């Protein structure tokens, strides 16, 4: 369960201050997949970064399973599995070693790491490259490894920043099924995307962000209803005010 209340964050850039996130509030429930949809530069990544305490908000707060991220950052990070925008893996380690490293950092013992890794290998279809060094991995293999290492500690909350970026159709499919399994297991899954077909297809609840604001929030049906549009695509465009950057 993730609750976000009135998050604001601005950055100093060379050309002046940029208000990246400007009052974002939403909730992501357990057993649901929640999608953060918005064009590039809408503030999705910055919002997620505040969730996993990499960036601290100027104001507002983040609650993960009732824990305040500002006062309990370590426990909040421990209850999250994060696939950040940056998903580099260690090239000189094998996929298995990459996963085991993060398992150890999450405080798991070796036996548990082995068991969880086996389960993730099956779920993400990683058998044929699991013991190869990551040097020369395809984008799909890298993303799978990054997802496996993010979830090796079986976190109750899963954050994924643009998880299908750069993946081929087959990998996207297996990732989608994997996320549905996570939902079935009662996890709280929060993913960001700028591809509305993907969000429409996968998410139980959609939070539409544009220019640092939440412009719409609800189930796909609610979104259609509130915008008065029969199809979701039109509903998104109506909510955001333009169709800029929403098509894959």
């Amino acid at each position, binding site marked *: 369960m993730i609750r976000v209340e009135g998050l604001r964050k601005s950055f100093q850039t060379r050309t002046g201050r940029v208000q990246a996130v400007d009052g974002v509030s939403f909730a992501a429930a357990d057993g649901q997949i929640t999608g953060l949809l918005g064009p590039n530069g809408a503030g999705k990544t910055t919002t997620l970064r505040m969730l996993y305490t*990499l960036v*601290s908000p100027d104001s507002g707060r983040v609650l993960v399973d009732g824990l305040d991220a500002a006062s309990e950052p*370590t426990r909040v*990070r421990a209850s999250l599995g994060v696939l950040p925008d*940056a998903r*580099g893996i260690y090239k000189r380690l094998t996929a298995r070693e990459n996963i085991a490293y*993060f398992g150890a950092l999450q*405080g798991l013992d070796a036996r548990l790491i082995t068991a969880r890794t086996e389960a993730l290998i099956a779920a993400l279809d990683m058998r044929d490259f699991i013991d190869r060094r990551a040097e020369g991995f395809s984008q799909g293999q890298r993303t799978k490894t990054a997802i496996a290492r993010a979830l090796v500690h079986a976190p109750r909350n899963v954050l994924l920043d643009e998880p299908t970026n750069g993946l081929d159709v087959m990998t996207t499919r297996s990732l989608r099924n994997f996320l549905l399994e996570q939902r079935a297991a009662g996890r709280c899954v929060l993913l960001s995307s700028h591809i509305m077909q993907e969000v429409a297809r996968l998410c139980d609840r959609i939070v539409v962000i544009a220019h640092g604001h939440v412009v719409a929030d609800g189930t796909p049906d609610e979104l259609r209803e509130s915008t008065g549009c029969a199809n979701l695509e039109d509903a998104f465009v109506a909510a955001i005010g333009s169709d800029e950057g929403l098509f894959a």
Partner: protein
Amino acid sequence: MRALWIVLRKELLDAFRDRRMLLVAFVVIPLAIPLVLAGTNALSARKQMQQLEGPLELPVIGAERAPNLVAWLQAHNVRVLPAPRDADAAVRTQEHDVVLRIDEEYGEDWRSGRPASVEVIFDSSRPLASGATVARLGGLLDGYGSTVGTLRLVARGIHPAVANPLQVGTRDVATPEARFDLSQQILPYLLLLLAFIGGMQLAIDATAGERERQSLEPLLATPVARESIISAKILATAVFSLLSIAVTLIAYRLAFAIVPARGVDASFDPEPAGLLQLFLIILPVVLLGATVLTALAAFARSYREAQAYLPLLMFLPMIPSLMLMVAPVRTQLWMLAVPFLGQNQMIVRVLRSERISALDWGVSLGASFAVVAVVWWIAARLYHREQLATSS
């Protein structure tokens, strides 16, 4: 603590799978340093042997004016060469180390008992190249002069001691270990430099490289405290450089076993206790280097930017060594508290087999570790900056 160990182990595993890094740390450096030192040593030994014992090649201007002197010189292992056209130029261009000119009035002066002039032409700005040769020629000329002088006194019935009111003797108190200048000047610097920036590749790779390869953000998203992460990266750097230094020192000893430093007598030939002392002396420098490099890598926006600062860091350990080379001073206690300067003095003492008191150890180690702690604190602050992971 557990997390620190996990990160440390992973960083070392990562480093030991980097062939290029291994090649530099465990092959190139351990080969290069002993080769340079042993090579220079062997060269300078051979040169000194030649200058002291080999035939002295000496162009003589006007050799025909002093046949007895020339014969005497030839009897003393001097090979007399024809005079060059321009003696000054020949010496200045190092064509000859030294040229002897016999004055035109030599024969006449000699016969009439007046001091006869000879002139030694040499270049004092090249003491290393020609100093020994010039001194040797000077000694030979003095010898000839005093032999003839003694004979003249005896011929006049005067005891030769009359002309020698003073007898000067010298006693050199240097121990064999202390006499070897080369390793005393170069080795401390090389050791300190290696200790300080020997881990540069690992340190920059572990922070700036990790960020550039986009794996720092996932790492920071784990519950592990940043202090643990940075400490582990610093320790991994330190362990790696210590191993590299150990291999280098072993290679150094082997090199001197193969290329004995004959002629210049004892090279640095420490017993195990001396090696241990050297290790203990440079340990804080290794930690300081690892911490400074890690802080630098956290501060720099990219791998390349971090590398751009390296020449500056190379210069740091050089400063005290240069100072001591130019103006050798007596060691005072406060110097031991200054990073690099203190270690330099301590290393020289070990090389000279001098005793180091408990107080000296305390001051040197205490001060260095205090500096390490301060830089560690700065590095940890840098690791807490939001830009660390987000500005890539």
